[in-house]
């Protein structure tokens, strides 16, 4: 399965007409999906370089070629941030979440750089009463997400936790 990544490119463009288009062309040709573009002109130093942030999602294998083509156009890429965990699902858990070893619950789902619990928010109304938690899991792809959900379901059955998940696969 091809791995998709989300990445932010910070480009330095000369402040003259046509530069943005020159930068976007190779991105578009790489098959990437442009999620957002923002640019800021330095009003105090007219004529200085233009900094453009472009967030794209593309197949990981297509990234090196894209960076080469940008370089070939004399465009400086000053920073690349990569978000590998593209799949995200939110769950609500109800039960004795803390008293059933929360660290264990999270550790069993976490698989470094593949599936990670990225958000956990717990409300405990009263001692001895069930608590409620919102848990966000991110994964590199759907298959890994399915693995993580299977694990979560197993943990929930063991620890008598109720899971509420999103309706998936809707059109």
């Amino acid at each position, binding site marked *: 399965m091809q791995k998709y990544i989300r990445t932010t490119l910070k480009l330095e463009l000369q402040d003259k007409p046509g530069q943005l288009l020159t930068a976007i062309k190779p991105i578009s040709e790489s098959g990437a999906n442009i999620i957002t573009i923002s640019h800021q002109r330095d009003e105090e130093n007219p004529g200085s370089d233009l900094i453009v942030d472009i967030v794209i999602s593309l197949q990981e294998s297509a990234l090196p070629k894209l960076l080469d083509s940008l370089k070939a156009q004399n465009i400086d890429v000053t920073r690349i941030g990569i978000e590998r965990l593209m799949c995200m699902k939110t769950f*609500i858990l109800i039960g004795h979440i803390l008293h059933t070893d929360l660290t264990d619950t999270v550790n069993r789902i976490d698989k470094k750089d593949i599936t990670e619990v990225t958000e956990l*928010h717990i409300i405990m109304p009263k001692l001895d009463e069930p608590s409620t938690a*919102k848990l966000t899991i991110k994964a590199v792809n759907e298959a890994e997400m399915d693995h993580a959900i299977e694990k979560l379901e197993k943990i929930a059955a063991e620890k008598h936790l109720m899971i*509420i998940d*999103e*309706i998936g696969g*809707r059109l």
Partner: protein
Amino acid sequence: MMKIALIGIGSVGRGVGEVLKNDKRFKIVAAADSKSGLVNPDGIDFDAIMAAKKKTGRCGTTDWTAFRIAAEVDYDTLVEVTPTNAETGEPALSTIKIALSRGKHVVTSNKGPISLAYRDLKALAKENNADIRFEGTVAGAVPIINGMKNGLAGNPVKALFGVLNGTCNYILSRMEEEGLTYQQALAEARDLGYAEADPTYDVNGTDAAIKLVILANSVLGMNVTLKDVQRTGIDRITPEAIKMAHTTGHTIRLIASLYPDKRDLEVSPRLLPEDDPLVFSETLNAITVETEYAGAITFIGAGAGSVETASAILSDLVFILKKYAL
């Protein structure tokens, strides 16, 4: 004109009486409650039997039982609207079998017999050249069975998601709107008559699961029972869970879901976007059907009620009336 034997004059039976009494195409020739019955080939005065029932607790005399009416009276269609028995389907199942064996048509809103014995009843009807119809068993007035069988005929169904229990929907929407606990919202639903004295079958997902079984077997050609439906109720849901769902634009509803290809049937509380067509207040029912060609289609309307359920029964009666030119 169609001659009708009406079995059951509780809430739905009264609705049927109201809907049919001024309709010249139909004549109620027999009626029975759980204790008594009466027969009149010239047509029963429905208001008179309701008055009698109010006064004495009986609509007729004890010598006419539902079974005897089904077996002996001259009628075209038996309308069976007694309360559901989810375990055995009785006594409705036996009443319906008697009618079908005589070649009489049957229209019912009773979930028990249809969820337990759909294939047998369909075969018995076919053998005797009779029809059995049951639009009122799922989602009250909402024409989901005919809507899927006829309106969406031929369209492969990828998935189906339904809010099939008005009591649960009321409880969850009150928890969402007012921050009530489950117990508080349930007490309110009881006070308003939306929840029964023993609400177990509603809140543990069984009622919705029975309706899902009916849709799976009768519309999607599956062969499943209640045991095939994975069920989780709403009694453990906390007000905090609904508040947390809200922070990402979601809410919680009891959803019956069905993926025909995977034979995956489930009734459980799920997170839904707050703007999803399946998110609404009060006791309505709704079903979203995801189809190959038509995309997603949502049916929504009254899921219960006397005259509302009678509307579903009327549509089945009119279908039979036309088909057999009665």
